[in-house]
């Protein structure tokens, strides 16, 4: 049976080409994703391992300190005591944080989140000596982990910095130059005293590293006399574990000791997790592509079996059982899947290598490392190939088994095609109805997300099941348009609905991809409109000031802005982790006196009031039964509690929770930082006002000053970017759908060779034959496109309703007609593209061969 399967697969390799290609593309995407993310994850992990080579044990603020800020515990005293541990050879305190460096044109160097500044402290037994780096080429300097000065010396005083060599090369900065830096507020100017080489992972990945003297770094990133972490090196003969045990006895509550091995594991886990998310999105798209491929495979095997009816009947006549026939078909499918999957694996590895090279060439600065081809992709690609193909061939195989042996003998071997669609239509209608109701009602019932997900899947499946039924009216609706193309158009319309199952399966592949595209378009357009309307109804500020990396701004920033003559109102937005029973564990601080001029919070009752007060959104108030005048308890990060009087209840517009005046929270904060600063200027936004703000911030490269339009543009731009990435991912599904249309047309041309020959004999010329095939393809593709757009728009609406019901009550449904029409147009283009090769074949058919009688 295997040999029969193999022979059959070989005999039909042309017919199976599209199936192979579809499976290959899908599995290549899967294995490419796994190899690419595995490789990057491995490379990042290796580069972070390097960062831990100079330490054995690290003391740091405990990760689960119950919201308490314990960084203050990492001080000079602890460093000294840690250095005195019997197992410790050396203890180094380090302070580091975000530090943006401006290039000669004032632009940020490197990507925002990878630019780091580090306190440069020489080691010692607890004595943080400043910059004892010996100048000289390549001489290793005891300047903390992995910094070796190649030029100049390390920074020893405020206003001095050292840059990594890579950054210096990129910017052209040299020793003696003045550079502008921004950490979390107004700009700093530093003089470059030295350049160093580092194997820091972030620098390898395109970031920058700036060294400060320890005191400056402590002032910038922690507090005077404090560190972010203390790194210990074990004395000879002491294992890291033993040192860890010694250190654990020493450290106060809230500080923990971890070994380098544990740090490496953590980092590896973190990398794996972040790449797993990327992988999940990519694999989701690959899954859709493979699912789309299933339709193509079903069509191919149905056609192969119809054509082999006699042959299979003969097998049955000479004694093969039904089971053997099924197994023969499935074995053939399995072989096809295996070959395609193996080829897919090879292509996937290639694609991963190429993508990495292309990204690197485009300046993405990915870490180096060998291509990691793990067991997962090696196993997944062939397994998926076989699985998908065999699963898709299941139904056709069952049909093959039902061919009666007598079919071998009868002269007329009509393929068992004319089965009733009644059952199918009933099932489809029921599924679609349940799905539609679930999706539409999702916003009104608890557990709406699950209901919507389930409803969407049911509706989608229902419509796919119903597509044969829908194909006739939809394509009939295109009749008048088709008839404009004369006989070729009329015949194309009729041919398109001749085998409703095949047409439906072909169109369905397109329906899936285009439904997702349409759904995303609706969501994207609605999100953009919603953001704009929210901004219009909430925003009163003229400018919003944030860090380029969305990091914290120092408190001094707002103070500097307040002093400016043009500024009439400012308020920070200070998010603090604080426990409030019955509310989100975050309390937001505003400058209560100014906030009304900067933000319309849509108060339903009351307003902001000075003193120990708070306001809360209506939903939270209702769920806790809070009323104006009630007192709520807040536990601050330092452990202290405040009783705040409720003076206002506002309508939730995107941003809910407990809000209070900054004067209430500031006493409980170790280090005051702002997430953003809102500014109102005299006479509204103007170039002059903006210039004044920027000047006050020292034209810092790391700080963004944006007006309302720019903020909205930033958000809509991000939405657009995400959508474009997703559209890009769906391209593969559409490509496979195109292959499906090509496959179906090629089959049709082959099966209708005699018809085409007859048409040619009685007077249809080649151009008209090509047009006939092209129009058939367009009709099938439009069927898929129209169903997809309708389905996608409906799902987009349902998703929006759900979002609105989850508190996002300003969600505005927008149907982007232009884009939806574009999607339908794309479907037509798919048809035209897919028809190129089959139409050419049809036009070249030899008339005589076609009409010759056997």
């Amino acid at each position: 049976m295997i040999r029969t399967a193999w022979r059959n697969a070989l005999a039909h390799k042309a017919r199976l080409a599209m199936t192979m290609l579809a499976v290959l593309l899908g599995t290549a995407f899967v294995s490419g994703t796994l190899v690419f993310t595995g490789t990057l994850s491995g490379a990042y992990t290796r580069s972070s391992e390097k960062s831990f080579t100079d330490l054995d044990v690290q003391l740091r603020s405990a990760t689960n300190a119950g919201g308490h800020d314990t960084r203050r515990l990492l001080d000079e005293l602890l460093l000294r005591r840690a250095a005195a541990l019997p197992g410790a050879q050396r203890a180094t305190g380090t302070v580091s944080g975000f530090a943006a460096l401006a290039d000669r044109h004032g632009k940020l160097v490197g990507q925002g989140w990878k630019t780091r500044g580090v306190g440069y402290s020489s080691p010692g037994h607890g004595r943080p000596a400043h910059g004892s780096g010996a100048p000289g080429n390549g001489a290793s300097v005891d300047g903390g982990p992995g910094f070796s000065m190649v030029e100049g010396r390390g920074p020893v005083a405020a206003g001095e910095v050292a840059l990594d060599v890579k950054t210096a090369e990129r910017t052209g900065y040299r020793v003696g130059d003045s550079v502008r830096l921004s950490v979390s507020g107004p700009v700093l100017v530093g003089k470059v005293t030295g350049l160093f080489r580092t194997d820091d992972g972030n620098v390898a990945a395109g970031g920058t590293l700036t060294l400060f003297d320890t005191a400056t770094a402590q002032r910038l990133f922690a507090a005077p006399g404090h560190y972010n972490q203390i790194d210990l090196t074990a004395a000879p003969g002491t294992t890291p574990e033993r040192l860890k045990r010694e250190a654990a006895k020493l450290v106060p509550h809230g500080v923990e000791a971890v070994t380098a091995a544990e740090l490496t594991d953590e980092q590896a886990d973190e990398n794996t997790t972040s790449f797993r998310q990327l992988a999940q999105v990519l694999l989701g798209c690959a899954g859709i592509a493979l699912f789309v491929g299933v339709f193509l495979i079903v069509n191919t095997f149905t056609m192969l079996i119809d054509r082999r009816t006699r042959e299979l009947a003969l097998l049955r006549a000479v004694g093969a059982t039904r089971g053997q026939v099924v197994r023969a078909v499935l074995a053939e499918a399995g072989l096809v899947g295996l070959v395609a999957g193996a080829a897919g694996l090879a292509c996937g590895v290639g694609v991963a290598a190429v993508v990495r090279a292309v990204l690197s060439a485009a300046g993405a600065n990915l870490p180096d490392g060998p291509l990691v081809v793990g067991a997962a992709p090696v196993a997944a690609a062939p397994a998926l190939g076989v699985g998908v193909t065999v699963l898709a061939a299941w139904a056709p195989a069952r049909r093959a088994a039902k061919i009666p042996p007598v079919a071998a003998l009868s002269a007329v071997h009509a393929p068992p095609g004319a089965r009733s669609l009644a059952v199918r239509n009933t099932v489809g209608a029921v599924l679609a109805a349940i799905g539609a109701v679930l999706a539409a009602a999702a916003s009104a019932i608890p557990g709406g997300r699950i209901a919507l997900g389930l409803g969407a899947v049911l509706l989608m499946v229902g419509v796919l099941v119903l597509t044969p039924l829908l194909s006739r009216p939809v394509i009939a609706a295109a009749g008048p348009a088709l008839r404009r193309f004369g006989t070729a158009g009329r015949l194309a319309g009729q041919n398109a609905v001749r085998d409703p199952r095949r047409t439906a399966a072909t169109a369905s592949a397109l329906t899936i991809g285009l439904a997702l595209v349409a759904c995303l378009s609706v969501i994207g357009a609605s999100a953009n409109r919603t953001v704009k309307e929210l901004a219009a109804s909430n925003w009163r500020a003229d400018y919003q000031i944030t860090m380029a990396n969305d990091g914290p701004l120092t408190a001094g920033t707002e103070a500097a802005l307040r002093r400016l003559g043009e500024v009439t109102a400012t308020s920070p937005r200070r998010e603090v982790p604080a426990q409030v029973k019955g509310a989100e564990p975050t309390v937001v601080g505003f400058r209560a006196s100014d906030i009304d001029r900067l933000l319309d919070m849509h108060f339903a009752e009351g307003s902001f009031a000075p003193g120990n007060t708070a306001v809360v959104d209506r939903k939270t108030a209702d769920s806790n039964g809070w009323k104006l005048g009630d007192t709520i308890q807040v536990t601050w990060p330092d452990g202290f509690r405040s009783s705040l009087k409720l003076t206002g209840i506002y309508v939730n517009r995107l941003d809910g929770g407990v809000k209070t005046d900054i004067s209430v929270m500031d006493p409980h904060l170790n280090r005051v930082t702002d997430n953003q600063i809102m500014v109102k200027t005299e006479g509204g936004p103007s170039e002059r006002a903006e210039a004044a703000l920027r000047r006050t911030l020292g034209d810092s490269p790391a700080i963004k000053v944006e007006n309302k339009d720019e903020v909205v543009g930033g958000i809509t731009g991000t939405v657009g970017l995400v959508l474009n990435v997703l559209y890009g991912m769906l391209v593969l599904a559409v490509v496979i759908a195109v292959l499906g249309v090509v496959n179906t047309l090629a089959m049709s041309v082959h099966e209708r060779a005699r018809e085409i020959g007859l048409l040619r004999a009685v007077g249809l010329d080649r151009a008209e034959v090509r047009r006939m095939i092209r129009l058939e393809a367009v009709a099938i593709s439009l069927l898929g496109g129209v169903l997809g757009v309708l389905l996608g728009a409906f799902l987009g609406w349902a998703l929006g309703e759900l979002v609105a019901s989850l508190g996002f009550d300003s969600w505005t449904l927008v149907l982007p007609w232009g884009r939806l029409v574009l999607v339908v147009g794309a479907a037509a283009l798919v048809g035209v593209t897919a028809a190129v090769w089959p139409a050419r074949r049809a036009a070249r058919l030899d008339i005589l061969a076609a009409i010759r009688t056997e």
Partner: protein
Amino acid sequence: MSETIPETSEGGAADAVAARAEDLTKVYGQGETEVVALDRVTVAFGRGRFTAIMGPSGSGKSTLMHCMAGLDSISAGSSRIEEVELTGLDDRRLTRLRRDRIGFVFQAFNLLPTLTASENITLPLDIAGRRPDPGWVERIVTTLGLARRLGHRPGELSGGQQQRVALARALAGRPAIIFADEPTGNLDSRAGAEVLGFLRDSVRDLGQTVVMVTHDPVAASYADRVVFLADGRVAGELHEPTADRVLDRVKALDSPGTVS
């Protein structure tokens, strides 16, 4: 000869020619595998006449029809439909010639399964974008007894009915000539006789020119004239044939020694 005949002549003058081949040669393959299917065949088909082409299989009778009907290319010589020389016509012109000037009845698979009988009948006219002459089509349909079958699809028609629809299609456009390739090959004798009767009637009553390829002496006996082909050459002809006379000639052709 053909030059002297007005194009619109429908009278069925026996001396007028609807199609003519001169030194028509058809060679398949090249070099070692070269096969001469037609070897300098010269033949003319009279306007308003019913001509049968006979010959053993491999004699070239189908090839002759294909070449003269513009379905296959010609290696050498010339072939005309009325005044139009086929050699040198490109595919588009040949297609248009077939559509407008030639009717076809094939042995099997004459009709498009998606079209009704009526749509099949007017197919070439529809392709050409020409409006069928309703009176003419009605006359053909009535004559062929298809009036009550017009809305049926080929799958719902018997073999004989299908061939009659094919004949109606061939007649609908009033072509210069109808080529029929074994039109009764797939029919039982009763249905076959019916179709042959209609073919003959279309010549006698409607003045149509018909050329039929067949290997059946009985079918050939319906014709006014039988042209015999053997080994790609004309091997004689017979006027006012009967089935017996045709059979005798066929036997003579088949027997060894008579092959020229």
